[in-house]
């Protein structure tokens, strides 16, 4: 990064960055029969390589122009070169009659250009506006996508203590991560927009009221509504796509909407500071190829969220903090119903193969994606900081923390357990169990600031 003051009002910042991400899997199967060199010696090999990577080189020039108190103009240019390799597969085999599909997904180059500007305008003492826009062009596979991202927000001060703020913004995204797991796995992959999939866009409107109840105590209430287009997820039948097909055939593009309201009470002064936040939220998704085209709740459709944070300065060099988090559980898909499969129905094996290890509970079924809400998530984190001033304005900070102080076992998944009896032989019914893995975790750290 390089920063230069071009004039008293104009400042320039140039920056560049490079990031590289990749995951790769290689499955190699070798078989031999007989003794090497003998006439009946046979050797075979099958190999499958799967690769997923992203390389980004980013160049950015940012300017800020400060023309008195009435205007603060920020503008700039950005260029990013992306190299995507999303789920590339390469196969080889010694088998003569196998014809591998031509490797698809070989390198996809994306060129992203952006120009942006925003201006803070003070129209009068009681009315401020922020106007901005970002114009983007993303060129991939000889096709260019243009996106204009305007944003506007306005703040009207009704009195010295009360103000109203509203805003609208549009965002675009040219790369998305797709995953069918509830935990991050190396098999999750990032995909760029393509001839088939358009950029993800979202439009959000918001309206809020802000009030200073008394000196140092603030109250705000804000509501929002957000529309999302061109979201990507695995389609319901992605596992039936032939292995030679492109990754695009496994994905479905859809819409989303999110809305809700946030209430925040914040105390900024005194020995004890902190805030209380409450959110009432909804998030939905709708895809043609998922959930039979019907709208379903998103994974993070957490209806209620409460955050309480307090910071107590006990002495000049000792600080105690506590944070309590509560939210309705994430949504997960659980097959709550089961049914008989054909392989265990007793058909003659000539017309339907039997499966010797069929679960006696049958096949899994669920009507709706993300049909079950996990139990509520909550935890209390405690910490104490000891500040140790050093010579030359340096500072040593000892921190003792307790994560999840009351050891709430917050479930992360739901397991279908078919264990038939306890260790003592007591019969058990098939049952659902939650799995939680993070109990109370104490930690000690030392930070040295210089």
């Amino acid at each position: 990064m390089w920063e230069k003051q071009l004039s008293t009002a104009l400042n320039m910042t140039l920056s560049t960055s490079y990031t590289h991400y990749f995951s790769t899997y290689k499955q190699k199967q070798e078989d031999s029969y007989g003794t090497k060199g003998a006439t009946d010696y046979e050797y075979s090999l099958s190999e499958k390589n799967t690769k997923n990577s992203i390389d980004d080189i980013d160049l950015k020039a940012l300017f800020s122009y400060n023309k008195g108190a009435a205007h603060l103009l920020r503008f700039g240019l950005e260029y990013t070169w992306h190299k995507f390799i999303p789920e590339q597969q390469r196969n080889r085999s010694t088998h003569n009659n196998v014809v591998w599909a031509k490797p698809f997904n070989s390198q996809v180059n994306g060129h992203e250009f952006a120009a942006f500007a925003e201006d803070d305008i003070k129209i009068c003492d009681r009315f401020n506006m922020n106007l901005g826009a970002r114009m983007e062009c993303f060129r991939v596979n000889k096709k260019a996508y243009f996106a204009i991202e305007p944003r506007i927000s306005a703040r009207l001060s009704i009195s010295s203590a009360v103000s109203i703020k509203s805003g609208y913004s549009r965002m675009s995204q040219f790369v998305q991560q797709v995953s069918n797991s509830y935990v991050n796995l190396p098999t999750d992959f990032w995909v760029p927009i393509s001839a088939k999939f358009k950029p993800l866009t979202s439009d959000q409107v918001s309206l809020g009221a802000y009030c200073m109840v008394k000196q140092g105590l603030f109250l705000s209430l804000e509501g929002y509504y957000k529309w999302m287009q061109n979201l990507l997820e695995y389609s319901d039948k992605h596992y039936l796509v032939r292995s030679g097909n492109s990754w695009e055939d496994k994905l479905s593009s859809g819409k989303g909407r999110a809305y809700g309201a946030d209430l925040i009470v914040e105390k900024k002064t005194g020995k004890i500071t902190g805030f209380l936040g409450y959110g009432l939220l909804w998030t939905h998704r709708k895809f043609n190829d998922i959930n039979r085209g019907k709208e379903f709740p998103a994974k993070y459709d957490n209806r209620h969220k409460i955050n309480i944070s307090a910071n107590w300065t006990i002495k000049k060099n000792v600080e105690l903090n506590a944070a309590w988090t509560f939210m309705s559980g994430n949504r997960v898909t659980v097959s709550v119903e089961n049914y008989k499969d054909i392989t265990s129905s007793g058909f003659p094996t000539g017309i339907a193969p039997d499966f010797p290890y069929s679960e006696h509970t049958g096949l899994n079924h669920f009507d709706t994606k993300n049909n079950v809400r996990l139990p509520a998530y909550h935890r209390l984190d405690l910490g104490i900081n000891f500040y140790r001033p050093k010579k030359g304005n340096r500072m040593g900070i000892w921190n003792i923390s307790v994560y999840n102080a009351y050891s709430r076992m917050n479930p992360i998944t739901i397991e279908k357990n078919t264990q038939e009896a306890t260790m003592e032989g007591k019969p058990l019914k098939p049952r659902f169990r939650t799995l939680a893995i993070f109990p109370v975790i104490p930690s000690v750290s030392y930070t040295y600031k210089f």
Partner: protein
Amino acid sequence: MKNIIIFTISTLPFLLSSCYNELDLSKYREGSKIVLNCAASTDTVVMAHVSESKYFSDARNGFNAIADAHVELSVNGTYLEDMKWTPLNNDNSQDGFYISTYTPKAGDLIQVKAQYQADTAWAQDKIPVLTPIEKVETSAEIIDDPDANLSGGGTGKKYVITYRITFTDDIATNNYYCIRIDDGVVANIGGDVDYSSDPIFVAQRNAVDGSNGKSAIYGEGGRTFNDELFNGKNYTLTLKESGEYRGSISNLGGLIVRTRRIVLYSLSEDFYNYLTGILNESDESLSTILTDFGFIEPKQHYCNIVGGLGILGCSQESHYTQDITPIIEASKNKGH
């Protein structure tokens, strides 16, 4: 020190609290649905099994057949007959099938409709063209097995039988298959059938399953595959069976039954999609384990039944039967 001990003891229950907790999801019950499982082939009359889906915790005792449903068969768009409820003779669980008198022909469009109480479920599917097995070649070897348990009188060796199954795919259509080795009746033959010697099955394995370090690909009930890698060609599929070798053909340990039936099913696309979700998803695969634990989102099982669950699956089969005794004996005499 006393305070530290009190603190440690008082926090221990939190530290050791269980990772698993039972959860009641009965409020998410979806209500039972009619389940129609029906198989049609040129080898026998059309058969159907009708039952109902259950809430998971109620599924412990299996799924009894519904005996008083109304099931009818149509062929090529024309109603043919009501299928007759036929209980299994030697079964006390009130299980049974609805059986027709019609044996389908290749290309027949089979439609089965089941009505039970207020529910109606139906499906249709087409009998595929048969791809016959042209040739099966087998060879065997007896090799040292470092994993063998010698304490039970074992020899520290295992037998490996290689099956090479040749057939010719029809270039004109997308074809779907299932290959299976059984003893003529059931798939549980004692030894393990490993499909990883054939590139078709290696290509099927997803990245998650490939990352668990195991090279074998199992599928005791058989495995499905399609013709995308050998469309229109004469293809030889390679499978391996292995098991503990106990020194003589009369004492082959796990090799309980010496007859092997190699079955190549030609499947309709619907039946292929359905069976793939059962046969190719071994309990031992990493993705299955992660799904069972709830880390991976479960897949909706393929179903072609309108108004219910299950499958109407059409197939034809070609099989080859072989006594493996002489192959093992020949291998033993070769001094492997």
